């Protein structure tokens, strides 16, 4: 029996001294920094002010959580000027010292921009070892959920570009920007309570305050991006308003209020630039909408350093009209409609603008005067006129060449384009390059490409098919149904063709004759807004299947501007 007892004793002894190998393995893995960032802050009496601020503002739970942070701890000496009882201000300060993610000074702090919990994005200057104005005196205090860097000062707290703009008083530009602010109904949060007597929904409305439409396009308050914004003094602002106004006339605006607002919006947009720029080092800046803004001779009245960039107030800037009112190129392939889109083919062509052009699948029958040749190939003299004897010969061009493919058979087949223009006069050019091999190889029969361009002006009735004379004619509110722009080019020739106005047959809208006045080559847009353009065939014939082919690489509208 005693042996049994002895065996049991040995077994018990062995099991008592059994050790978990994991204990050693985990111990070997180094001192896991068990304490959290908050513990580390709390443990150091030098940082008690910061700790106090954390506790007062409720940020302490953050620094105890498992998410990783980089914390800049200002030593107690840095807190002299801070009112520790103003919790709202204190919270702003505290959040401006805590960044997401763990960034070690020895590792990845070097090139990092840090997203602070305040929303600001701040940068560490590795060379000077400063963080937004504060010197890092003791880096890399590691905790289980991040790292602490000690600074000698509070990290500077700048407002962002937008907040700084709004600070500027008595300024027309700023007043305009401010005027864009309004409040919006939050559709997601508003709960429908019922419907009114006319059946419209009634909401328990939740409002979103301080919505500024300008920021939707150019988010000057986005802390993650950097901006430069220029505010003009009132005189400079008025100068530009005067300059811009003729080109931004809004349709149906007798008082000119909408035009004035559009002009102001355009000026405001032109002075927003991406990135933080020192304008004294530049002659010209290019704005977010591509407008070149000269700043060489500008007098800087005021500068606002901002957390996400900089704001300047300058006296004036003479933006050139040709920088603002630019030629408009409408790519052929960007058509928005057609009589039948199925016949309009988008082709990849290396020579084409935007790498594509379009071609309309159709047929053209063309008559040409051809010399009569003898068997040796020498022209025969006419006994009547004494000149070379000629005959008239016709040829049908078609694309695609295969006979069994259906082609467009609509009279006045149109391809529709839209373009936004200023209230200005434009010259109209296009490239309609027929590179189909057989269309230019026979010297006696080179395809003449003639195409009509109908245009309707902003704010006016749109183009439509059918008028009193014919159901297939195009109704045109701009030049009337019997005048349109016409382009003429030859197959095999790649060039920009200027379009000018022709008179048309009333019913068929066949080409009659060109107008010869100087105004005939000019398109006058009375208002700012969207044009509709129809490129049409049926220039000489409407016989079945012979209404004509169409080609277009692009249309270019070139504004006619005064000399500056």
């Amino acid at each position, binding site marked *: 029996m005693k042996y049994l007892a002895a065996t049991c004793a040995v077994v018990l002894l062995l099991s008592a001294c059994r050790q978990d190998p994991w204990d050693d393995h985990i111990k070997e893995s180094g*001192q896991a920094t068990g304490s959290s960032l908050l513990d580390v802050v709390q443990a150091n009496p030098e940082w008690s002010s910061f700790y106090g601020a954390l506790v007062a503002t409720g940020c302490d739970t953050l620094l105890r959580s498992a998410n990783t942070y980089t914390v800049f701890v200002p030593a107690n000496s840095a807190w002299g000027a801070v009112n520790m009882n103003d919790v709202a201000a204190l919270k702003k300060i505290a959040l401006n010292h805590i960044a997401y993610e763990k960034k070690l000074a020895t590792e990845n702090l070097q090139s990092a921009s840090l997203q602070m919990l305040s929303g600001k994005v701040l940068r560490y200057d590795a060379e000077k070892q400063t963080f937004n104005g504060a010197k890092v005196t003791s880096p890399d205090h590691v905790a289980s959920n991040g790292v602490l860097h000690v600074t000698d000062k509070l990290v500077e707290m700048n407002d962002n570009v937008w907040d700084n703009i709004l600070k500027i008083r008595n300024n027309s530009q700023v007043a305009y920007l401010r005027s864009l602010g309004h409040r919006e109904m939050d559709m997601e949060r508003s709960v429908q309570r019922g419907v009114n007597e006319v059946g419209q929904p009634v909401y328990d409305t939740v409002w979103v305050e301080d919505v500024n439409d300008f920021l939707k396009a150019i988010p000057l308050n986005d802390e993650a991006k950097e901006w430069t914004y220029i505010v003009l003094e009132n005189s400079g602002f008025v100068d530009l308003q005067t300059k811009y106004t003729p080109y931004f006339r809004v349709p149906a605006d007798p008082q000119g209020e909408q035009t004035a607002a559009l002009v102001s919006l355009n000026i405001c947009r032109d002075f927003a630039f991406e990135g933080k720029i020192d304008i004294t080092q530049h002659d010209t800046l290019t704005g977010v909408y591509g407008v070149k803004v000269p700043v060489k001779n500008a007098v800087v009245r005021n500068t606002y350093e901002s957390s996400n960039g900089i704001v300047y107030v300058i006296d004036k800037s003479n933006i050139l009209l040709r920088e603002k009112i630019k030629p408009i190129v409408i790519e052929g392939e960007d058509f928005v409609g057609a009589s039948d889109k199925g016949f309009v083919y988008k082709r990849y062509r290396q020579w084409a603008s935007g790498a594509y052009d379009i071609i309309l699948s159709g047929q053209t029958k063309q008559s040409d005067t051809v010399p009569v040749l003898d068997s040796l190939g020498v022209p025969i003299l006419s006994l009547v006129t004494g000149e070379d004897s000629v005959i008239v010969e016709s040829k049908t061009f078609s694309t695609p060449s295969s006979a069994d493919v259906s082609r467009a058979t609509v009279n006045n087949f149109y391809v529709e384009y839209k373009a936004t223009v200023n209230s200005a006069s434009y010259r109209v050019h296009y490239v309609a390059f027929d590179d189909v091999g057989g269309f230019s190889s026979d010297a006696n029969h080179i395809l003449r490409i003639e195409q009509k361009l109908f245009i309707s002006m902003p704010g006016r009735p749109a183009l439509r098919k059918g008028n009193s004379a014919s159901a297939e004619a195009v109704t045109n509110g701009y030049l009337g149904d019997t005048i349109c722009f016409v382009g003429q080019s030859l197959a095999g020739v790649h060039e920009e063709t200027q379009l000018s106005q022709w008179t048309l047959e009333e019913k068929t809208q066949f080409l009659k004759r060109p107008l010869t006045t100087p105004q005939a080559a000019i398109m006058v847009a009375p208002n700012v807004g969207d044009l509709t353009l129809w490129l049409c065939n049926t220039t000489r014939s409407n016989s079945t299947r012979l209404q004509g082919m169409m080609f277009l690489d692009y249309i270019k509208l070139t504004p006619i501007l005064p000399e500056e």
Partner: protein
Amino acid sequence: MKTKLLLFFVLFLFSLAAAAQQGGGSDNAKLTVRGRVLSAESGRPIPGVSVGVPDVATAITDDDGRFSLSEVGKGATLQVNMPGFAYKEVVAGYSDELTIRLYDESFRTMYRQVGSPFGSKDWVASTEAVTAIASRESYKKASLSSEYLIQDEGLGVNTVMRSGAQGAGGNMYIRGFSSINAGSQPMVLIDGVPYENAVVTPSIISGNNITPLAAIDVRDIESITVLKDATSIYGSKGAGGVILIETAKAREQVTKIDFHAYGGVNFQPTKFYPMMNSYEYRSYLSEMLSGSGLYSASELQALPYINSQKPTSQPWGVEGNRDYYRYRHETDWQKEIFTGSFDQNYYMTIKGGDEIALYALSVGYVNHGGIVKSTDFSRYNTQFNSQVNVVRWLRMATNMNFAYSTRNLVYEGLSPSYNPLYTSLVKAPFMAPYLYNELGLQTPNYEQADVFDRSNPAALVDEDNVTAMNKTYRFFGNVSAAVDLGKHFEWNALFGVTFDKLRENIFLPQNGLYHEPLSSGLVVNEPKALVSRYLQYYADTYLRYRYQLRHAHSLAARVGMRYQTNNTEGDWVNAYNTSSDNMQSIGNGVIDYAAAAGVLGAWKWQSLYLNGEYSYMRRYFVSVNMAVDGSSRFGKEADGLKMFGNVFGVFPSVTGAWLLSSEEAMSNLNLFDVLKLRLGYSVSGNDDIGNYTARTAYTPQNMQGYYGLVRGNIANPALKWETSAKLSAGLDFAMLNERLSVSFDVYRNSITDLLMWRQSERYYGIDRYAVNDGAMQNTGFELGVWGRIVNAGVKWDMGVNLSRYRNEVVALSGDEQVDQVAGANVLTKVGAPVGQFYGYKTGGVYATAADAAADGLGIRRGDGSFSPFGAGDVRFANLNDADNIIDEKDMTVIGDPNPDLLGSIVNRLQWKRLTLNAVVTFSYGNDIYNALRASVESMTGAENQTAAIAGRWSHEGHETSTPKAMWGDPMGNARFSDRWIEDGSYVRLKSVSISYDIPMRTSFIKGLQIYVTGNNLLTFTSYMGYDPEFSAAQSPLYYGIDMGFTPQPRAVLVGVKLGL
């Protein structure tokens, strides 16, 4: 070398013959022998003992234990028989009076019976190295298959359990690795019929192994014998050693009924991987993701598992982080998947008969729960054995076994989506098994596959959710006849049939699981099925000649033939995307995704054999065996004996033994009760080279919807068996009236013609082909010490089994070969053991940038640029000084999975009616590549990591052994290095049981025993994984690679055995 060996043998045989001559001289002297038989325990005389030489003279002891025998030849061996006592032999004539001390029948005597290819024989007369496993009390261990018994006492057998999944069984390596790429397992014969112990079609439940031996209830086993050498009688199947299993048969005509029952508990494991908790993991994840470049700082803060804004209920709905409550938990996922479970078993056996026929019938049911939820094993089994004396000259016997078993399993190994064990480690601890809604209320719905594409471990182990079931049916039966043909001849015939059918059904639902997408589309759920069958016919017939001359010369010779045909078929279908998780049959899957596959196999084996056994004066023993084997697997042009248009292998062996203790000089020394020397040389083969490797095979190929045949392999018509030449010497002795017995063996197994796979050139279109190339050898020793330590009142027996093998690759045409296994590089190199780990050496982690710069090491990127190691990176040893780049030239051997020493300690204590059995197994000096730990400490992605990762390098000057966390591990800090190699030594209290025989006075109940058993109660190891004992596959290339297996369960059970 061979001629030297031969010479040695010839000398040995001559010396035997010379000794025989010398012994022969005294043979004729007749004398009278007197003696006394006493109890070895109490010293009291035993009356009624039969002492004598069969057919010459027999005496019965009187009340004083005395006997007297006349006409006994000097040096003759007396047999001492007494029911209830251990059988014994003594040599007569060397002393005036013999004192014979007998032990009780539970004593492990040197004269016990062991199995042999031709029935049982006396161990003392055995010329081979055999290990007999005592199975009398093994029922107390409640083992599901016989590997467990072999592990406890199988001296020289390295038995490694595959996993703790119930019924997974174990791999057995006898005297080292017998092969690298061909089968490495021993041949198993049950009642003389080969028992196919390899699963013909691998389980489609990935990572699982199903042991066919689980079809045999261990209580139906009477004896297990391991033949470690001289297996050439089994010719081309004997190279891996042979395990002979005899099922229990009726020995007497009295009807005996035994009823067994037990019930038990498997405990939930207590040893878990310590993983990071929610706080540590969230902090780690936040750091990993911020360095990943996947998210900006503000995007990262908005992620629902990072964002800490609590949701609030507003009139218009919920504001804030709607998923806040889903990611705010502290779940110990390992506890979600591991569980305690119950075991139960009922078993009854009836034995009996009359002079004509004896029968033994048993029926049983067992159910063992697994320690991973939803897993279990259950089996219905029956065994029927009969022996019939048809007429005086004809005896017949049948043995039949049928078992049906069902296993509910889970995926094992490094399967990130489906193995609950692996998933429970890498799953985010801040998630919960069930979905929490935006108000923080738990819903009854499972969390679905998470944002990191991880399955929900709780959903994986829900048996109502996931199905992974294996069903096996096996019929194993044989009928045999023995015909007496006169005095010397006997004709034996045996015919056996094995029929095995296996079904597997898998359904992996959408609910809670992540599914790897297919190239053709996303996967929603997966039904799968497998059916496989195996049919074996086996016939063995031989003619035996036996000759006995005056008890001095004894000769037995056999000539026979074996024939075996095997047919296999396996068919399986993987289907995908049924319309609902309730539609679970494969027919409901989307037809375009479904993939079906199958294998057919047929092979035949024929063996002609010859056996001769001669002994003289029961002192000198010689045994000669030879088999001539043909197999359909051998190539037609292989190097061998050409007969009947086929190639045959010739496998001879010769073994001898000299029982020195029966010599007069030794006997007079009175030092040894038994002293025996053994020596043997045998050649055997390994035919497990694949059914069609030597033949050209074609496989179907789909080409745009049309099927055709293409070449499936590059045939090698010269391919042959692997040859194993075993040289073995042994010494057995017993002293102090057998209270101490020792068996010591040394061996050298030389294996040639190894089956190796060669890479072929790309333009062949088939990437590899088989050749016989290379050689390796296993050398080693085995030491079995057994003693009765206490023999008064308390009887304490203790056995210590120690063995050691050293494997060495001797020749390889390629000199060295590196295989990739689970992220490890496994080296096969001339002069080194197979299976070595080949990787990088490390020396901690650079604490500072200055340290790293001082070494100046780095890696070469894919674009050729140099990328230096920095602070927080692992300090790799730059073994190739020629450059400062850490690449494969710096790899070296970093570990060896082969143990220096392995074995077991077996104890048995008996005190009155109380019996205590305890088995300790151990392995020493083996390394383990912990692939599971490597994958949960690699810090490559969003997976949870072990608690050691919480101490990862965090700042300049941080002294740690864990590198910094970097998304994707760009510097390769987690590469295969000694960081993942661990010492796999262990000592395990494998089983301990206490039984009490309740005294019974009724005549109805003959015996009633109750017992309590604890299995795997204690394990001492410094290995960090769940369990230092596991086996991923049979190939030595997988040895010691832990891919995450279920640990062996700790169990306690209470049983009762009732004898009627």
